C-alpha cells in the first residue's frame, strides 16, 4: 500500500520537476513570438480568415516577421478602426494611408429582374446557379438566396425582401472581401470606400449567354451619365459599354445619379426614399 503511494508521488514529483527544469533551462521563446503576441493585441481577434491566414495570431506572426504583409494581406477590420490601426502602426513602425486602402463591398445589381421560372431546389445561390445559370432572366442578377449573408463576419449583409437582392450596409462593411469570394455570380465588387457613386449593374455583353436577354432594370448603355458629368469624372468604357469613375475628379454633385433613367447609379449608402422609388417604378 505505502509503496504504491510512494511510487506514484515520486513519479508525479519527478515529472513536475522535469517540466519545471525544461521550462527554465530551454532558451526563452524566440523574439518573433513575443513580437507577434504584441501585434496580436491590436488585431480584432475575430479569426475571420479574410486576410488569408488561419487566424489573427497566425496573421500577427506573419506581420511580425515581415511588415509588408500588412499591405499584401490587409486586415480590413483594422483599417476601419483608428485605435487598432494606431496600435499596429506603432508596434510595426509603419505608416498606413488609410483612404487609399479602405474598401467597401457593393452588390452590383439593382434587382427587379423577371424570373424565368420557379426555383424550388436547395436554397443557396451556389445550387441555383448550376441550373440554367440561375432562375432570373439576367444571368448576372442577384439571386437573393443569401450565400453572402452567411459568410459576412460583421452581419452587414441583409436580403431586401421586396427586391429579392442582397444589400450591404456600408457602415458595417469592413471590406474584408469574403462575400466577393462567396458570390457564385461574381456580382459583389470591392470599391474604394470614398466612392461617391456606385454602378449597380453587372450585365456584361462580353460574358453574355446566347438566348438570355438582360433584365428590365439594368444599364441600357444610354451614356446619359457620361454626358451629365461636367467634371469628366465618368469615363465611358467602350468595350463593356459601362461607365467608370475617376474618383479624383468626382465632386459628389449627383448629376449622373439624377440623369440615369434606370436608377442603376446610386450613392454608396442607399437611403430609404431611393429604395421606394425603385420599388414603385
Amino acid at each position, binding site marked *: 500500500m505505502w*509503496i*504504491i503511494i510512494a*511510487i*506514484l508521488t515520486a*513519479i*508525479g514529483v519527478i*515529472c*513536475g520537476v*522535469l*517540466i519545471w527544469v*525544461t*521550462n527554465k533551462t*530551454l*532558451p*526563452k*521563446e*524566440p523574439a*518573433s*513570438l513575443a513580437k507577434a503576441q504584441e501585434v496580436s493585441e491590436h488585431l480584432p481577434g475575430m479569426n475571420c480568415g479574410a486576410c488569408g491566414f488561419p487566424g489573427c495570431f*497566425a496573421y500577427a*506572426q506573419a506581420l511580425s516577421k515581415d511588415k509588408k504583409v500588412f499591405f499584401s494581406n490587409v486586415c480590413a477590420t483594422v483599417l476601419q478602426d483608428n485605435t487598432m490601426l494606431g496600435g499596429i502602426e506603432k508596434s510595426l513602425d509603419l505608416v498606413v494611408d488609410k483612404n487609399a486602402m479602405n474598401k467597401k463591398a457593393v452588390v452590383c445589381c439593382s434587382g427587379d429582374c423577371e424570373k424565368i421560372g420557379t426555383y424550388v431546389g436547395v436554397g443557396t445561390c451556389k445550387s441555383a446557379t448550376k441550373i440554367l445559370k440561375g432562375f432570373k432572366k439576367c444571368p448576372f442578377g442577384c439571386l437573393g438566396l443569401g450565400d453572402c449573408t452567411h459568410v459576412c463576419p460583421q452581419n452587414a449583409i441583409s436580403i431586401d425582401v421586396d427586391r429579392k437582392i442582397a444589400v450591404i450596409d456600408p457602415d458595417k462593411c469592413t471590406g474584408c472581401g469574403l462575400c466577393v469570394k462567396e458570390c457564385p455570380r461574381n456580382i459583389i465588387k470591392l470599391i474604394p470606400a470614398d466612392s461617391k457613386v456606385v454602378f449597380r449593374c453587372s450585365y456584361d455583353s462580353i460574358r453574355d449567354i446566347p438566348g438570355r436577354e438582360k433584365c428590365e432594370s439594368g444599364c441600357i448603355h444610354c451614356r446619359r451619365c457620361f454626358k451629365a458629368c461636367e467634371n469628366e469624372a465618368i469615363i465611358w468604357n467602350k468595350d463593356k459599354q459601362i461607365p467608370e469613375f475617376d474618383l479624383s475628379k468626382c465632386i459628389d454633385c449627383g448629376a449622373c445619379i439624377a440623369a440615369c433613367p434606370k436608377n442603376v447609379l446610386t450613392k454608396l449608402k442607399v437611403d430609404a426614399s431611393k429604395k421606394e422609388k425603385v420599388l414603385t417604378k
Partner: protein
Amino acid sequence: MSETGPSLITIFMSMALINNFILSKFLGLCPFFGVSKKLTNAISMGAAVTLVMVMASIATTLIYRFILVPYKVEFMNIIIYILVIASLVQIVELFIKRTNITLYNSLGIYLPLITTNCAVLGITLINAQANYAMVQSIISALGGGIGFTLMLIVMSGIRERIEFADTPKSMRGLPIAFIIAAILSLAYMGFSGMI
C-alpha cells in the same frame, strides 16, 4: 533481450496493418473522425501522434521494467502511464516551441490534444501486456503510429471526395463517415489471421 519474442518486422506489420489501432482495436477514434476532414491536417496529426507514441513507449517501458516490475505493482500501470504521458507531451511541446517554431506551428493544436489520446495510452499498455523489450516497444509504437497516420490519410482522402458526392441530407457529415469507417474496418479484417 528478445530471444523468445516475435521478430521486429512481425511486430511492425502487425501494429501497422493487421492489428491497426483504429480499425481493429478501435483506439484513437476521436482524431480519426475529428481531424480527418482535410488531408494536410490528417498528416500533421498522424506525425504528432507517431512522435508522441514512440517517446511515450520509451519512457513507459523504462518505468515498467525498472520500477513497476521490481516492486510488483504492475496493476498501477494505467494511472502511472497517464501521468507520464501527460508530462511527456508537455515537455515535448515546450521543447518544440522553444527550439523549432516552424515545426511547432505546423503541428499546431494537435500536440496538446494528444495528451489524453487513448491510442498513445493503448500502445504503452499493449507493450506492457506483451512484455516487450525496449527495441520491440519502439518498433511496435512506430508501427502503431504509422498505421494510425495511414488510416487518417485514407479517411481524409475519402471524406474530401465524399463532400462532393450526392449524399442524402440526413447522412451528410459524420453519419456517412461512421459508415465509411465500418466498411474500411470490414475490409481491414481481411488482414486478420495473417500472423
